[in-house]
């Protein structure tokens, strides 16, 4: 077993693009669920519409990348509005069902053969981020101790973590403002907040939009980092990864989702690479290479269950102000 390889890979990926994507998705989710109590199980849809908004605008319609980014953000805003109008007046578990259904609808539509000319069917859209990489200020990749990134990856990762920091700053400022106070009030009892003259419906909608736009940044990073958008990358698993990251780090904490994403992705990659190595070297004979990849989903499922049962506040959270016991 190559311990060095295992650590290198785990650390690099724990701070790599995937961790950035989950962090951004989870930060948005934190605005939805952690601070406002909205049970959004369709976060993948926000990443998907942003990625596709970008891809379609650039690759299909031929506009510049920057127009594509604006279109992507607008798409996330529109999705939040469409999602919010029918569901924000409903009970929490209905919101859960509708959001997960909407994410599925988005995925099925973009992968459909009927709309293949626009969205590229199950192949998706490719090669639309050259403009981004043209701006790369780094002249070479990075090899710093265990951290190794290629030149392009380094650029994406640096921009990605800057976006994460910016998002955290926005969440930090928003949640210590009176705006955030209204959201926290809604999380606990919307009727009380309504009786004090606050338009609860509007605030929930705002939270949905803000969290959706923050999450959609993850879609941009996903799309640009791989120069492709593929429908099946935006399935329910992506949403649940973001949930696990948020809960692990601590919901309703500014850095909770970021810490959760890094740790969770590190853990997954670590176990994955360790098992792959063990299989390669022959320490483990009863599973094969493809099955190793499936084990990370066992970990995802178990993590969600065990955290919810034994430590719903995660690492950084405060049990006293958690949204989970709102019924």
């Amino acid at each position, binding site marked *: 077993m190559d311990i060095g390889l295992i650590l290198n890979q785990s650390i690099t990926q724990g701070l790599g693009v995937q961790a950035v994507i989950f962090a951004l998705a989870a930060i948005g989710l934190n605005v939805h669920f952690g601070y406002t109590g909205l049970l959004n199980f369709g976060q993948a849809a926000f990443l998907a519409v942003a990625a596709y908004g970008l891809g379609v605008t650039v690759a299909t319609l031929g506009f510049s990348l920057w127009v594509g980014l604006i279109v992507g953000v607008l798409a996330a805003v529109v999705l939040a509005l469409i999602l919010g109008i029918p569901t924000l007046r409903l009970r929490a578990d209905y919101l859960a069902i509708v959001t997960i259904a909407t994410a599925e609808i988005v995925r*099925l539509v973009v992968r459909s053969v009927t709309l293949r000319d626009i969205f590229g069917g199950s*192949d998706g859209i490719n090669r639309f981020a050259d403009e981004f990489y043209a701006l790369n200020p780094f002249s070479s990749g990075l090899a710093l101790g265990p951290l190794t990134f290629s030149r392009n990856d380094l650029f994406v990762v640096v921009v990605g973590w800057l976006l994460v920091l910016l998002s955290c700053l926005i969440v930090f400022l928003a949640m210590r403002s009176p705006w955030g106070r209204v959201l926290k009030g809604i999380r606990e009892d919307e009727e009380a907040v309504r009786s004090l003259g606050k338009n609860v419906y509007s605030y929930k909608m705002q939270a949905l939009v803000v969290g959706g736009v923050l999450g959609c940044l993850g879609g941009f990073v996903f799309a640009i980092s791989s120069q492709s958008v593929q429908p099946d990358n935006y399935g329910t698993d992506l949403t649940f990864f973001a949930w696990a990251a948020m809960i692990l780090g601590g919901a309703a904490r500014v850095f909770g989702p970021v810490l959760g994403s890094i740790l969770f992705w590190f853990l997954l990659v670590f176990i994955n690479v360790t098992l792959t190595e063990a299989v390669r070297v022959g320490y483990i004979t009863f599973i094969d290479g493809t099955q190793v990849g499936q084990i990370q989903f066992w970990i995802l499922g178990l993590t969600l269950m065990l955290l*919810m049962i034994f430590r719903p506040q995660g690492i950084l959270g405060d049990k006293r102000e958690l949204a989970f016991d709102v019924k």
Partner: protein
Amino acid sequence: MNHTVTRIERRRWPALLLLLGVLTACFGLLAAPGNAAKEDLTGEISGVMRDAQGQPIAGVSFQVTNASGFTGSDISNRQGEWVVPIPGPGQYVVSLDPATLPAGVTLTNPERTSLTVSLLSNSKTVAFPTGAADTTRESFLDRFLQLAVDGLVFGLVIALAGVGLSMIFGTTGLTNFAHGEIVTLGALATFVFNNFIGLPFPLAVALAVVVCGLFGALNDWGLWKPLRKKGVSLIAMLVVSIGLGILLRYIYLFFFGGDTEQYASYSGQPGLALGPVDITPKVIIGSVVAILALVLTMMWLGLTRNGKASRAVSDNPALASASGINVERVINQVWIIGAALAGLSGALYSMSVGVNWLEGFQLLLLVFAGVVLGGLGTALGAIVGSLVVGVLLQISTLFLPTEMKTVGALLIMIIILLIRPQGLLGRRERVG
């Protein structure tokens, strides 16, 4: 206070482990096919050819090539399946020879006989949708009747899963996102009994239903009851059920593999023509069994002591408990019945679509649609709503591309929530 909580946690924790252990043991049986020796070529591109009615098409020729000169080919077998082993991730062109399609079958998009696919992982399934073009062959009314019957049959499958989901929600408040995995378990267990052990199909289904019922009891006893005792909130339990669902799905995938398999019995059964409607005997018998199961469930709810008690628990658990009903026992029975019905649903569903590790999860959203349409928490509502969803889903293919039918059903669910959130048969006060 804290001390007691930890003690309870410690005592309950082995129960959860046991539950997972038993489950893993159950699937030890399936380990064999998952470990089948691989070819030199590490990846594969595969697919299943079906006609518009979902019946497999044999004898269609496929070719896979890539830029570096790789070429591979296969011809679809009796189950419509084809597999081309490939060297690994990369970009490939998959083409279908339209000359090998049987008469009367055309591709939905006749010009799309070859596809470019890029693989990030080792395997990918590629679909060449057929149908829509043969509508001219049959009259609109005939198509309509055929689809309505198909829809009712599918609706029964959804209803079997939906009743349990709805009853569990009614008695415990849990929105069980792992319910689809019980459906899959029903199909997998039937597959194991029928294909590996070689039991006759009806016996295999019966045993699978028993396995699922036990699994339901175990689910409640090992996981949900301790969580209720611990006072875990409904939202937290909902997230737990999502975690459980993911865990189960990937345990299935691990042991069963990603392919769709057919039952050994009746897989190629020819259809009967009843007037304009084509239907296979196995589907007729399966539907009769489904109807019987649903009627029995309604009778249990309406006539038996425990059934009535379960409705009392749905209405008001505290009051039910005060009037001498053993709430926990009633809930456990609801879990057994709900899971058994879900298992039957999976066993019957897979007769027409094959056995797949993801089938229950894919069905789950439609089950939610049916249950929400009828009114969450009522058994009759779940049945009616599910039948409506099944029929609408099939009928919609008259107007929509087949691949969009799920989108249509989910949109209808969202619209219903908008205009009548309590569902068709639900009571308003259930919506908080």
